[in-house]
C-alpha cells in the first residue's frame, strides 16, 4: 500500500513539474527598448491691456521691458528628454497701433542665446486683428533653449499714430509651449 502511495505521489509531483517546465519565450530585456513620447502643453505668458495703459504721465510709453529667471529649461529631465519644443503665440489687437514683442533667451552669464520677435498688426477700424507666431526649437535652437536661464520680454510700439488716454481698443496676447518628449529606459 505504501509503495502505491509513494508511486502516486511521485506521479503527481512529476506531472506538476512537467507542466511547470513549459513556458513560451519571454524576453525581459525588451524593457531596455522602452520609449514613450508624451506631448505636454503648458501655458506661457499672457496679457490683456487697454490702449490707455500706454499713456503714462502724459506721454506715450515706447517700450516696456521685463524679465524672468527660469531654471525649468535646464532641468536635467528636460535636457535629457526634450526633442523639440514650440512656443505658440496669438496676439489680438484692436488698437490703431502695431506692436512687437521681442523675446530674448539668455544664459547664466547674460549671454544672448536666441532671440525672436512677434508682431501684432494694427487695427484701423477697431475690430480684432489676430496675428500668430510659432517659434520652433529644434537642433541648435533647442540647445539654446535648454541653456536658457533668463528670458527678457520687450514690448515695443511700432511707430505710427500716437496713443493717448482717449485711444480705443485693447492688445491681448496668449501663448503656450508644446514640449515633445522622448523618454527612454535610461532616463527612468
Amino acid at each position: 500500500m505504501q509503495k502505491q502511495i509513494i508511486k502516486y505521489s511521485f506521479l503527481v509531483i512529476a506531472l506538476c513539474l512537467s507542466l511547470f517546465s513549459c513556458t513560451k519565450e519571454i524576453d525581459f530585456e525588451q524593457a531596455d527598448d522602452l520609449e514613450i513620447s508624451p506631448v505636454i502643453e503648458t501655458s506661457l505668458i499672457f496679457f490683456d491691456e487697454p490702449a490707455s495703459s500706454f499713456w503714462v504721465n502724459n506721454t506715450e510709453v515706447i517700450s516696456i521691458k521685463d524679465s524672468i529667471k527660469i531654471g525649468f529649461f535646464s532641468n536635467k529631465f528636460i535636457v535629457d528628454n526634450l526633442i523639440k519644443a514650440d512656443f505658440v503665440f496669438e496676439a489680438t489687437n484692436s488698437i490703431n497701433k502695431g506692436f512687437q514683442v521681442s523675446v530674448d533667451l539668455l544664459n547664466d552669464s547674460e549671454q544672448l542665446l536666441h532671440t525672436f520677435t512677434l508682431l501684432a498688426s494694427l487695427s484701423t477700424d477697431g475690430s480684432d486683428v489676430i496675428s500668430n507666431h510659432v517659434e520652433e526649437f529644434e537642433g541648435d535652437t533647442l540647445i539654446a533653449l535648454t541653456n536658457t536661464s533668463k528670458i527678457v520680454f520687450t514690448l515695443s510700439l511700432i511707430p505710427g499714430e500716437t496713443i493717448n488716454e482717449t485711444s480705443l481698443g485693447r492688445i491681448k496676447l496668449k501663448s503656450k509651449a508644446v514640449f515633445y518628449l522622448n523618454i527612454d529606459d535610461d532616463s527612468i
Partner: protein
Amino acid sequence: MKKFILFFIVISCCFSFSQNKQLLYGFSDIPQSLLLNPGGKIKNDWYFGIPLLSHIHANVGITGSTIYDIFASNGIDFNTKLQNAVYSMGSNDFFSANQQLEIFSGGFSFGSSYVKNKYLSFGLYQEFDFITYFPKDLAILALEGNQNNIYRPFRANNINVAAEAISVFHLGYNKKVNDNFTFGVRGKIYSSILNVNSTNNKGRFITERGQNNFYEHIFNLDLEARTSGVASLTDDESGSNAVVKDLTKRVLLGGNLGLGFDIGITHQLNEQWSLDASLLDVGFIRHSKDVENYKIEGDYVYEGIDPIFPDTGNGQTAEDYWNEIEDDFVELFTPDTTTSKYTTWRPIKLNTSINYGFGEKQYEDCNCLKDNKSYLNSVGLQLFAMTRPKQPIAALTAYYYRRLFNNLQVKATYTIDSYSAYNIGLGMSTNLGGLNFYVMADNFLEFKNIYNAQSVSLQLGFNYIFNKNED
C-alpha cells in the same frame, strides 16, 4: 543591506500564488484547514507542524494583461505591446501578491476521556500582502501627455497601493457540540513588521481652455501615503545585522500591534449534506511606532505668466510674479511629513460551502455500524469573498474530493474569479506513518505557459499527525 533584501526575498518570494485557498478549504485531513475555518471538522487527535515547513503559501495574480502580453518574445515592438496593455486595462485592474509562512503550529483535542469533542490549536505565521491597482490615468499621462487630453481629468484615486508584512500569533478553540454542529473561534494578535499604504487619494489634474490664456492647468490634489516600520530601516546606519535583528523582533510581537478574530461553523444537515462558513481576519492594526506619513494637499490654478503688466500699480515685476508661481508649485508638490498614528483594517475573508458526501466506505473486517459514516467522495460548491481597497473580490469554486486510499486524499477544483473563468486546481494530502505531506496548486491550464497565467497559487507543508483511530 544584502541581508535585508535576502530576508525579504526569502520571506516574501518563497513560493507565491491568491488569498483564496479553495483547495485547502474544507480539506480536513490537513490540520491547516482549521486556519480557514476554525469551526471546521477535525480528523486528528493532535498534530504539530514541522517548523517553517508546515505551511508555505504563495499567490500572485494580475487582472487585465499578463506578463506574456507585455514581454512575449514575438517580434512585436515592446512599446506597442506596452501601449496595448495600458489601453486594454482599466483602473480597477490590479496586481496582487500574497504569501504566508507558518513558523510553528500545533493542536490537540481534549475533553472527557471518552468524547474528546474540543480542540485547541495555536501557532505563529508570517504573512505578506501586496496590492496595487493599475494607475490608468497616470499611465495615459505618461504615454500621451496632456496635448490630446484637454478636459480629461487625471484622477488621483487611480493611485492605490497597499503593502504589509505582519506576523500573527493565534489561538483557536473548536467544539463539536453534537453530531450536527461544530463551531470555532480563533483569536489573533497581529504584529506589523512593515506597512505602506496609499489608498485614499483624491483630487485631479486637468487642463482646460483658459479665460486669459490658451490653457488653465488646474491642480486639485489630496494625496497621502502612510508608512510604519519603514522610516527606521531607511535611516538605519547601524548596519544590516541590526536591521535583521530589528525585523526579527517585530515578528515576535515587537512591531505595531493589532487584534483580530476568526469565527466559523460546520452544520451537518443530514448524513450526506453539510454546510459550513467562516469569517477570517476581522481585526485591525494600530500603527503608532515608527510612523512616517506624507501628504500633498492643495489647489492651484496656473494659466501662465503675465510678464509685462503684472498687477499694474503695485510695482510687482514679472520676476516677482514668476517667483510667486514657483513658490506655489513648490508648496503644492512638497509633501508634508507627519508622524500621526493610524489604524489599518485587515482584509476580511469570507468562506462558505455546501457539501455532499457519497460512496460509503466498505469495511472489510466487519459490517458494523459506525457512528460517523465516512464517505469516500464529496462534491460541493464554495464561495470566497474578500475586502480589497477599492472593491471586494469574490470567487466561486466547484470541487470534487476523493479518498483514494486510507492515506491519500485528493481534491480537484474549478474556480471562477476576478482573474479567470477557467481555473483548475489540484491538491493532495498523504500520510506516511505520522508524517503528513500536502501540496496544492491552481491554474493548471495555464501552466503550459506560466507567464500567460493571470494568477498562480501554491501551498505545501509537512505536519506530524496523530490520527483518530477510526479506520
